[in-house]
């Protein structure tokens, strides 16, 4: 910490002219990122904030968003943790391809994700036909919202968890093997506790992504208040109905995101070592 401060000071004093090289472009980006959010807050708090925030549409959307995103995070934890562990600690043919597949949804446009989900698991979808045969139809259901959110957010969790598992000293693993530990014992008693922070920060990242999911949801799950209309969908439609509702809902979503990111940063800072 002390060292870093000295270093910064050093740059400033030796060549103050080139400081602008960093400050000006950096400031431009800060303005680009900050001004829209500032405008959102200014606009929201001059209008009748609570009336809109507590409206039936807003509350239904908030509740649905919180419930679906929490379920999708739990799913990510349950199925993503083993996958992240496999990717981080095991060596097998095709691992690189599997990593690519898991990373892909992070960079895919959500509309592509939504279309792919619809074509795969829709009622007339390639695999959806099998589901339909046993009486399950996913599109337009809350389950479809959870699937869309998991599709786009689980990869973020897996990525973080994988890095967490990979960062553990291999000697610990060897020691456990020498002691005769099974894979499960190694995972549950050594790896899981050591990677805990990476798992939690990955889960929070996935949660914020799931909360913000829009494109895949509107294509795969449609838009019905109380069933599939999450916060981002309500904001998009509210924009056309009443801008104030959209602005207020946006601010609520920004606040929730700030809290989640704040918790994540705190966890990162508290990390021992």
């Amino acid at each position, binding site marked *: 910490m002390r060292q870093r401060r000295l270093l910064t000071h050093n740059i400033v004093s030796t060549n103050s002219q080139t400081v602008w090289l960093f400050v000006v472009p950096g400031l431009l980006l800060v303005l680009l990122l900050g001004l829209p959010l500032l405008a959102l807050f200014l606009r929201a708090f001059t209008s009748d904030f609570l009336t809109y925030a507590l409206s039936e549409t807003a509350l239904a959307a908030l509740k649905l968003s919180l419930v679906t995103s929490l379920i999708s995070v739990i799913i990510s934890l349950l199925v993503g943790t083993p996958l992240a562990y496999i990717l981080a600690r095991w060596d097998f043919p095709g691992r690189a391809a599997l990593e690519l597949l898991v990373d892909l949804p992070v960079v895919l446009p959500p509309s592509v994700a939504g279309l792919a989900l619809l074509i795969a698991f*829709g*009622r007339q979808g390639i695999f959806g036909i099998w589901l339909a045969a046993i009486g399950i139809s996913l599109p337009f259901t809350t389950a479809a919202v959870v699937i869309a959110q998991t599709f786009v957010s689980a990869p973020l969790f897996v990525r973080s968890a994988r890095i967490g598992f990979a960062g553990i000293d291999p000697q610990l693993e060897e020691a456990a093997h020498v002691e005769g530990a099974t894979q499960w014992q190694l995972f549950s008693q050594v790896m899981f506790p050591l990677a805990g922070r990476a798992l939690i920060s990955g889960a929070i990242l996935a949660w914020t992504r799931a909360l913000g999911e829009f494109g895949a949801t509107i294509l795969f799950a449609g838009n019905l208040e109380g069933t599939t209309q999450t916060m981002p969908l309500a904001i998009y*439609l509210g924009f056309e109905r009443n801008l104030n509702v959209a602005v207020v809902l946006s601010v609520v979503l920004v606040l929730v995101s700030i809290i989640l990111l704040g918790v994540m940063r705190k966890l990162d800072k508290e990390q021992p070592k």
Partner: protein
Amino acid sequence: MKLHIIIFLTLALLLLLGACGNPAPTISPINETAGAPLPVHTAASDIASTATPEPKTLTVFAAASLTNAFSDIGKAFEAANPGVNVKFNFGGSQALRTQIEQGAQADVFASANTREMDALVTDGLVPADSAKIFLTNQLVVILPAKNPAGLSTLADLSKPGLKLVLAAKEVPVGNYALQVLDKLDAVLNTGYKNKVLANVVSYENDVKQVVAKILLGEADAGIVYLSDTITAPDLIKIVIPSENNVVARYPLAALSHAKNSALAQAFIAYVMSADGQTILHKWGFLPVN
């Protein structure tokens, strides 16, 4: 020396930022005639159009239901007026109206209902009494080619357990659909409208989304414009009798702040002309009278 370059670059950047800031921000992706979504209206295109004294680019915001017909009209208008480039932004009329209110640069607005046009007149963005009705449209019920729910009459729409897709009530076609359901409610048994609405599984953002959900076979029925069925001949139609139907009247107007109002007026005249009306008719729209 290095410092000068940095200062120059910074100033250039700030200028560019100012240039983007000047014309009000465009929120919408603007579709090229072909229909491929393109985020046009970047700083570059704004600078290019202000640099030329006579802008030859016409920006038309048009209701989603007009996508095919106006794309054709755009090509024909370009062919008739060499050097002119027509750009389209297709979407729900209510979304386009909001975009224009928020400062999107458009020359011509074609709405699927008079409500959105009237709102722009009230805002002072369209001169009063300048909007012309240029076509009419009617509604129809569409079913997937396989007709998974085995529907055949309008009364069938109230059968419990159906998956029905409508446009949101803010979208013109969604509002028209509610009017049709009101009329049917009066002639069919009471409670018809509520039973039908209980079957709605999604309220879409524009009419094309409703058509897409039916084309994919994901929903059992949807209510769209008659003109939408031209591009989807495989779909099964349930005709709504004209006494229970609505007449959707589409208004067209040049915006008060159109960059080239002469060109905008020429485009409107073309849409109203026999050539323009023929193209509209080809795409399933009905004449004004």
